[in-house]
């Protein structure tokens, strides 16, 4: 049998087995995040700050460690034999092969029942819708008057006044003095909240709470009447119960939960200087923008005004004036030229007259010369030189062929005519000597 195992099964190391065990234990819900009731024994407050003890009952014992970081909120001293309820989980310490309970919180026994009662009340009020987010009222941004429900002797009211006045120097605070723990605390707190809800006090926001204390000290803020008073407040209300681990139910019922009264004052009261800075900032941004805009328009207007037309409105007319003068000049010049030209042409016409006259004279001269030439050609002048004209039957006889012997002809000379009879027709022409 043993041999078979050795040959067919995997062999684990101690570390493997311990690892599996550790994982198994630490992932089991029933072993983690649980409350365990027992009696303290072998208690050791170690110099490191950790607290070691055994938790036991009649039948069993378990080692427990309450580490420094977790036990710093412990508000009572653990004692040997003390009955307690611890909250935490089981873990495996591999090096020693042991398991132990890591403690996160410790309550004295008897508180366990109280816790259960609170848990039940919480469940009940939750079902009623008392903690519903939609019930929460917003806090005013600028409360004028803060109502405070707390002890007149405690540090809470003093812290609130200091913080509130530092943030907003002219804030108004009205205290409803209350007993916040022990006999009569519940009635006192409820009365305080209700009183401050009376409109006559002009309260804008309520801070109800107390400084830190033990679990029992804070119990009043887990009482049903108080929780209901928080939920029923007409005025927005801040729960300000100094606590380390568990939130009191008032935190759930209030409009806002603050971890301490000082924190509540910081939540409720704005920093006046910041608001003034914000208003200044918006105002400055608006002004800067508007100034920019106006400036840009002013610049545009300046540019327009700087144009020559507006600087010297006559310039508009000047141009036309210049053009007009120019046109006038040109018209004058043209007219003058016209007149001169015409005059010149007219004077040229007078010359023409002269030319015509001269020419006429020329013609006249030529004419007269021709006339005198004509005079030379006239038969009269020829006749004067001794020539004569012979006519027969009024016809000029230029050849002997038209004359016959015996014809009567008329001979015309320079100063008269004669009737002659033809005696002889001779074909020869001779002048005197031969005849």
């Amino acid at each position: 049998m043993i041999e078979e195992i050795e040959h067919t099964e995997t062999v684990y190391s101690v570390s493997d087995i311990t690892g599996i065990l550790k994982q198994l234990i630490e992932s089991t819900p029933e072993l983690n995040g649980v409350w365990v009731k027992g009696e303290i024994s072998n208690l050791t407050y170690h110099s490191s700050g950790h607290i070691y003890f055994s938790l036991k009952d009649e039948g069993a014992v378990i080692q427990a460690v309450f580490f420094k970081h977790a036990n710093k909120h412990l508000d009572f001293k653990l004692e040997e034999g003390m009955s307690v309820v611890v909250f935490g989980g089981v873990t495996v310490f591999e090096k020693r092969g042991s398991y132990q309970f890591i403690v996160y919180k410790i309550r004295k026994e008897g508180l366990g029942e109280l816790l259960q009662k609170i848990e039940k009340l919480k469940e009940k009020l939750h079902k009623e819708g008392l903690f519903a987010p939609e019930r929460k009222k917003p806090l005013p941004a600028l409360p004028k008057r803060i109502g405070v429900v707390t002890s007149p002797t405690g540090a809470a009211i003093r812290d609130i006044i200091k913080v509130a006045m530092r943030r907003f120097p002219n804030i108004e605070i009205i205290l409803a003095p209350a007993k916040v723990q022990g006999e009569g605390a519940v009635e006192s707190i409820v009365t305080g909240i209700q009183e401050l809800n009376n409109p006559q006090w002009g309260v804008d926001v309520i801070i109800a709470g107390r400084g830190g204390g033990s679990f029992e000290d804070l119990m009043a803020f887990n009482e049903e009447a108080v929780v209901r008073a928080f939920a029923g407040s007409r005025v927005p209300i801040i729960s300000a119960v100094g606590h380390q681990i568990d939130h009191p139910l008032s935190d759930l019922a209030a409009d806002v939960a603050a971890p301490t009264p000082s924190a509540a004052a910081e939540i409720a009261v704005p920093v006046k200087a910041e608001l003034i800075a914000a208003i200044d900032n918006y105002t400055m941004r608006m002004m800067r923008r508007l100034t920019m805009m106006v400036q840009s328009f002013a610049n545009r207007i300046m540019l327009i005004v700087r144009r020559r037309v507006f600087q010297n409105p006559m310039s508009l007319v000047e141009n036309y004036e210049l053009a007009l003068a120019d046109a006038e000049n040109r018209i004058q010049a043209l007219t003058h030229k016209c007149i001169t030209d015409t005059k010149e042409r007219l004077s040229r016409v007078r010359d023409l007259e002269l030319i015509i006259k001269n020419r006429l004279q020329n013609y006249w001269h030529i004419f007269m010369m021709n006339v005198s030439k004509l005079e030379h050609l006239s038969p009269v002048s020829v006749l004067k030189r001794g020539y004569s004209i012979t006519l027969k039957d009024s016809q000029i006889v230029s050849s002997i062929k038209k004359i016959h012997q015996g014809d009567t002809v008329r001979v015309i000379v320079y100063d008269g005519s004669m009737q002659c009879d033809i005696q002889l027709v001779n074909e020869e022409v001779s002048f005197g000597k031969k005849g």
Partner: protein
Amino acid sequence: MEKKAKKITFEDALEELEAIASKLESGELTLEQSIQYYERGVELAKFCRQKLEEAERKIEVLQKQPDGTVQKKSVKVKEDTGEIEDDEDIQGSLL
């Protein structure tokens, strides 16, 4: 505008003031609109500043009187630190 400003709350006024500043910076507005918004903004800023000065700096404590009525009484505190000058001043009970 004046009347409206009187009715609104401080936070509404501050919010509107911021919106106006942003609106002006967006550059979407004409000069005339800008001037209108600016005037409204100045109005709101004035309103906000007034609101900040409304509270009168007083610390009071309620005290139940023998006749059953509740009265308030003044508590003196140091102006610079807010420290209660006389612890007796702040004692009281509503029960």
